[in-house]
């Protein structure tokens, strides 16, 4: 039970008066970010990151990760009361959450959503507690080829498991890698793709990209839809909460399934959004009352919420142990770690024990604090959404501009942010996924250096990527992920082909 004593050690780090205060502030800010259109977990954390540079790293990461938990909770509020998903992963929550609210069970729906998210996150944190040290220990024997293989696996899973067309996923990803390559190449000292401009020496900062793509892009999209918020009023009192909690245990199977899907999709970077849809779909198929889904079934809220939170939380596992984030927000947190001089990866567990276990302990505490806060403060957030969009929109643009400026104190970054906003708008409308772009931009330098080191080791032979069992099987898995859509299609065709022999040939 080495993990257990480490965890207790972590609690003693996290449970200081100061850190609890940061946790509280983080959750409040996070819910606010989750509720407001145009601000989400990824760009909210990106904007606030520069403010934490002066704080001690442990306190800073606790506050930032609490913003993330808060944003995960906040997304459910808008989905249920206003039928507007504040975050993409809460789209599936609107299917049954909003009908519940409209039939006068808003309090019940919200309590269900918050409790389910809490359960999903809690199980995911337990998974992190016991799995992360093992993964970290295992990956200590990784060399550059293995690290590149794991990164390859990450990006191949995006192509195979993502919702978008493979061509668009690959294009978005390569764009991220290309942008990451801009600037001074630290190995050879060559300037790449700067075309003589001194400002591009620094390269493109992913924080600017995140703020533009998700913040400005979202505002432009929201404006197009001409949003008018029409919401359901909600009051939560202890009686409603207790009444709901008494009903919830009978959906334990749905919750467990949702959590497992979420953990899987979070660790392999499928992300919270597909996890929530998958969990909803499966719950609908297996439920006794499946045909009533969409009319206000409690189970239809439990399924997506547990999955989304489990995915959002477990996305931090590969980030901490391998230095490979499972979601855009985890990518931003990783960027923060690098700025504080902490190199994520297996060594983090050896060299920065206090930091890692303090963070893991804060995940337990943060989610408990989060649940209590959202249950007690729902009416406030609903009131914020009644502020007209014509006031909120310019304020969000202003916040994004400040966030972009404070990253490097550079005006060019603010202009770039607007450019990324246009890219985000175009890409979202044309179904280019944004997450691979951001992840490639963050991981670009790391992927390149592990690729280079592998090539140096093998003197340019690509065969190093299947030179031993470990790296070979990771690469094989990556290829399986990459061609997953083709494989499933071929399997389906084979099966259909067999049926065709039995029946008459269908007319094409």
């Amino acid at each position, binding site marked *: 039970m080495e993990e257990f004593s480490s965890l207790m050690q972590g609690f003693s780090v996290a449970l200081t008066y100061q850190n609890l205060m940061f946790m509280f502030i983080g959750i409040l800010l996070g819910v606010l970010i989750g509720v407001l259109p145009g601000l989400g977990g990824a760009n909210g954390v990106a904007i606030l990151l*520069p*403010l934490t540079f*002066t704080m001690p790293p442990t306190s800073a990461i606790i506050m930032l990760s609490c913003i993330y938990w808060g944003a995960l909770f906040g997304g459910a509020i808008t989905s249920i009361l206003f039928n507007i998903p504040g975050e993409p992963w809460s789209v599936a929550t609107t299917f049954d959450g909003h009908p519940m609210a409209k039939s006068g069970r808003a309090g019940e729906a919200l309590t269900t959503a918050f409790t389910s998210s809490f359960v999903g996150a809690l199980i995911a944190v337990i998974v992190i507690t016991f799995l992360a040290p093992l993964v970290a220990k295992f990956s200590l024997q990784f060399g550059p080829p293995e690290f590149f293989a794991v990164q390859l696996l990450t990006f191949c899973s995006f192509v195979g498991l993502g919702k978008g*067309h493979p*061509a*668009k996923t*690959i*294009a978005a990803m*390569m*764009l991220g*890698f*290309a942008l990451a*390559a801009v600037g001074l*190449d630290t*190995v*050879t000292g*060559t*300037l*790449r*793709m700067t*075309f003589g401009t001194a400002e591009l020496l620094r390269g493109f900062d992913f924080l600017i990209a995140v703020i533009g793509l998700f913040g*400005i892009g979202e*505002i*432009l999209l929201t*404006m*197009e839809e*001409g949003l008018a918020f029409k919401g359901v009023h909600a009051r939560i009192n202890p009686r409603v909460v207790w009444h709901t909690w008494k009903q919830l245990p009978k959906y334990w199977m749905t919750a467990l399934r949702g959590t497992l899907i979420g953990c899987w999709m979070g660790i392999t970077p499928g992300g919270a959004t597909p996890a929530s849809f998958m969990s909803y779909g499966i719950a609908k198929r297996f439920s006794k009352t499946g045909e009533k889904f969409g009319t206000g079934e409690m189970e239809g809220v439990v399924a997506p919420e547990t999955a989304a939170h489990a995915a959002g939380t477990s996305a931090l596992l590969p980030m901490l142990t391998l230095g490979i984030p499972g979601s855009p927000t985890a990518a931003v947190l990783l960027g923060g770690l690098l700025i504080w001089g902490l190199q994520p990866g297996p060594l983090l567990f050896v060299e920065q024990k206090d930091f890692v276990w303090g963070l893991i302990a804060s995940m337990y505490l943060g989610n408990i604090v989060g649940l209590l806060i959202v249950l007690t403060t729902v009416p406030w957030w609903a009131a914020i959404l009644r502020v*007209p*969009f*014509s*006031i909120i*929109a*310019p*304020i969000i*643009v*202003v916040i994004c*501009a*400040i966030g972009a*400026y*404070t990253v490097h*104190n550079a*005006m060019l970054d*603010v*202009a770039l942010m*607007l450019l990324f*906003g*246009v890219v985000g*708008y*175009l*890409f979202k*409308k*044309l179904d*280019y996924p944004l997450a691979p772009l951001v992840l490639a931009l963050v991981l670009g330098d790391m992927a*390149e250096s592990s*690729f*280079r080191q592998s*090539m*140096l080791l093998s003197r*340019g032979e690509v065969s190093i990527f299947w030179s031993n069992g470990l790296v070979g099987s990771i690469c094989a898995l990556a290829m399986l992920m990459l061609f997953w859509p083709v494989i499933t299609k071929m399997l389906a065709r084979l099966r259909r082909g067999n049926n065709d022999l039995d029946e008459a040939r269908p007319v094409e």
Partner: protein
Amino acid sequence: MSDNGHHESGVHRGVSVKTMEIVVALLTLALGLVVIYDSRRVGAGWAEDGPQAGYFPFYIGVILCIASVWTLWRTLFSGKAAAGVFVSHKKLRLVLSVFIPSLIYVAAIWFIGIYVASAVFIGVFMYWHGRFAWTRIVPVSLSVPIAMFLLFEVWFLVPLPKGPLEALIGY
């Protein structure tokens, strides 16, 4: 850029998805070519001491080009991939009515500092899109920059771009 078969109904007039798919795919293709060109310039091969600076980006550029051509191919030769309207003229006007003021706002930060520019931007936006009365515009558009000023300049000591007005009060 024609309206690609949407002439019959005036309601759905706008830029078609097909046009935008082609434009974006051509842009990514062009970027891919730039990456390839620049990687070749700095050397995409093998030096005595290992891979050159353009070794990795070169392949990134190649894959980006292949993916772009793939999307172009799908858009041009399989009809179902790109049907419908990307954005109607009416919606485009709405989007531009946010984007152009934001553009002017960012440009204005250069000259008059972020605080004054934000106040004007929020005020104009509220008047233009929300038709609020001056009694509501003035308090909102002033309180946001003042709160920002206290938060950044006074408490967190993070300097933001300032203009002549801030210089007048000694910042």
